[in-house]
């Protein structure tokens, strides 16, 4: 059975149809990319999946149950974690606190146990702290930065903290919105490997939006191409590379522009 199923999902903003009858399926353990030109509706699609937007039409099923009408925090608790296109860390909290926030709904403590500091509370906090520390190490952040405010980290570091925070929710599905944006080739290489490790070691299914074709082609098992809110193609990297629709809508234009730039130089 599919882990995630989107059936005829449509999201409109006034007269603009940002996502139009999107059909999409994700199997457990896959790494799938969604690509498309700017404004194609990729991020809107992500936001409807995570409950930040409510689609006008269509169904979204996760593990066979509908996500429509659930609040974002309820959807997160069902096992979908995400990162954001423009990093949205809690800047004035320390790195480790950011990660701890990701564990929010796994922690059993409540107001009473927090005020009275039961042993169970202390134990849970220590365990959570240790777990957060491991995650920080896992995503490749220097652990001596754990107590640093998140806003003080370099760009690449902040991207990694965001991934660690999402992993802290112990999700089944991880949505990454342009995780390699603004990274240099070496950093890109590192996070690409990180994603593969997350899938292989933690068995988390990954869906990512990405513009960097090196990342997309290297990591994806399947690619979905969106343009004007619709899915125009889907297939393996090799199929997408040779798909005429895609070349026309996206890669083609990009390739031509690239050649043009080179000629100018």
């Amino acid at each position, binding site marked *: 059975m599919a882990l995630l199923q989107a059936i005829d999902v449509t999201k409109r903003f006034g007269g603009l149809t940002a996502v139009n009858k999107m059909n999409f399926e994700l199997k457990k353990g896959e790494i799938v990319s969604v690509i498309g030109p700017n404004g194609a509706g990729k991020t809107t699609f992500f936001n409807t999946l995570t409950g930040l937007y409510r689609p006008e039409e269509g169904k979204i099923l996760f593990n066979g149950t509908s996500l429509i009408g659930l609040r974002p925090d309820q959807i997160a608790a069902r096992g979908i974690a995400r990162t954001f296109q423009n990093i949205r860390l809690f800047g004035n909290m320390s790195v480790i606190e950011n990660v701890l926030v990701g564990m*929010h709904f796994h922690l059993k403590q409540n*107001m009473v146990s927090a005020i009275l500091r039961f042993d169970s509370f202390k134990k849970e906090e220590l365990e959570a702290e240790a777990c957060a520390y491991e995650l920080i190490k896992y995503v490749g952040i220097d652990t001596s930065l754990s107590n640093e405010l998140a806003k003080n980290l370099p760009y690449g570091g902040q991207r990694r903290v965001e991934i660690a925070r999402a992993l802290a929710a112990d999700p089944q599905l991880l949505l990454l919105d342009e995780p390699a944006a603004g990274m240099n080739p070496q950093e890109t290489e590192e996070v690409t490997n990180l994603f593969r490790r997350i899938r292989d070691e933690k068995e988390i299914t990954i869906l990512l939006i990405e513009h960097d074709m090196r990342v997309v082609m290297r990591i994806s098992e399947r690619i979905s191409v969106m343009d004007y809110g619709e899915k125009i193609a889907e297939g393996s990297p090799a199929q997408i590379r040779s798909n005429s629709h895609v070349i026309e809508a996206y890669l083609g234009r990009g390739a031509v522009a690239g050649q043009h730039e080179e000629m100018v130089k």
Partner: protein
Amino acid sequence: MFSKEKFQDFLAKLNTGYTPYVLILVHIMIGAIWVYSSPRSNVAFVVFISSLLTLYGLNTNKIFKLSAGLILALVVMPVLGVRNIFYLEIMFQISVFAALSLGLNIVIGFAGLLDLGYVAFYAVGAYLWGFFGSQQFYAIPYAPGIQPSDLPFLLPGDMFYLFIFIAIIVAALTGILLGLPVLRLRGDYLAIVTLGFGEVIRVLANNLDKPWNLTNGPQGITPVQRPTMPQFAVDGFNNFFGGIIGHTVSKADVYNVFFYLLALLVIVTIIQVVSRLNDSKIGRAWTAIREDETAAIAMGIPLVQMKLAAFATGASFAGAMGVLMAASRTFVSPESFSFMQSIGVLTMVILGGTGSIPGVILGAATVTVLNLQILQGFSLYLSQLRQSDAVIPIINFAWKNLSTQLDPAKYQRLLFGAILILMMIFRPAGLIPAARRQRELAADDEE
């Protein structure tokens, strides 16, 4: 030349070894002796209470801090306060406002929800005990001013203790009631709605003297009962401290000491509750909401629930302090809960440092002292000058020609405004900025 580095070096040197201990003790001694010998001097009192700041700020071990603080609060302050009861009053006010600031700090500092009607919860607590702890219940059929004076009291005065807890619950419920409809709002919109809510409570208190006289209208409810004070407590206090105080202490003054100590106890409890909440998943969720609401909800934080928790917790502190205030004053009236009070508490939070627990306490102390002592003292000084024959030399201006309209005690609003503006420009994070807890982590890291 005087260089900044040298100065910092000098400060650092002062803060190591035994020097801080000596400095603190000297500061406390000077302050205490000065206040003891001239109980009416404002400067002496400011020097004295600023020793708390030295105690907090300088680098000494915990046991010293704790014991020095306890002796200051439980022995030195009551003795000095009984010699000039005004000081106890100031300490009580500082505690009340510190509690309010700590409560508002949860809503504004932690969760980032701008609440301009916070004083409403304080009113809820005060009127709760004001109603049940007075004759008001039997005065319901009478219009204000015409009720007979021999009405019985509804509840015995010792129910006061129970009502502190009831007020916590009632104020928290009021907080939730306010929170529910306004949670969709952010920033300015939220501020306006809460401002309106604060005014609604005040106007209700002002006008609920008809058709049934529930609040006795603008005249306020009086007398509100205090818990009973056994005679042996008064005698005990006199036996113990009578020698140093120099005169017999009356029951009324022992009441002042009692309320001061009770307020202190409430404050210590609140500080514990706030700092423990702050260092749990609840506090982290509040801060996350303040930092980025969208990211917070996407990370699985239930926004509505956590915001309501912030509103309720903040409100409950104000409720408890309301009961305390009503009993200590034996009087509640709507004018104590004006919009200016909310702004006052907001000023304390911003001055001290939004989100910082020691900060907002310092803010509350500073604003209260400025308000009750410095401005008042300045007023007094001006009026003395007016009555004298003194003349300002160069411009040849006689002090007695100074308009009586110029009364610094009335410039509270100017003070609040100036503090808010200056802080925003020069120190937006406050006097003691909030710091994140530093966790000790690297213990297991040896690879």
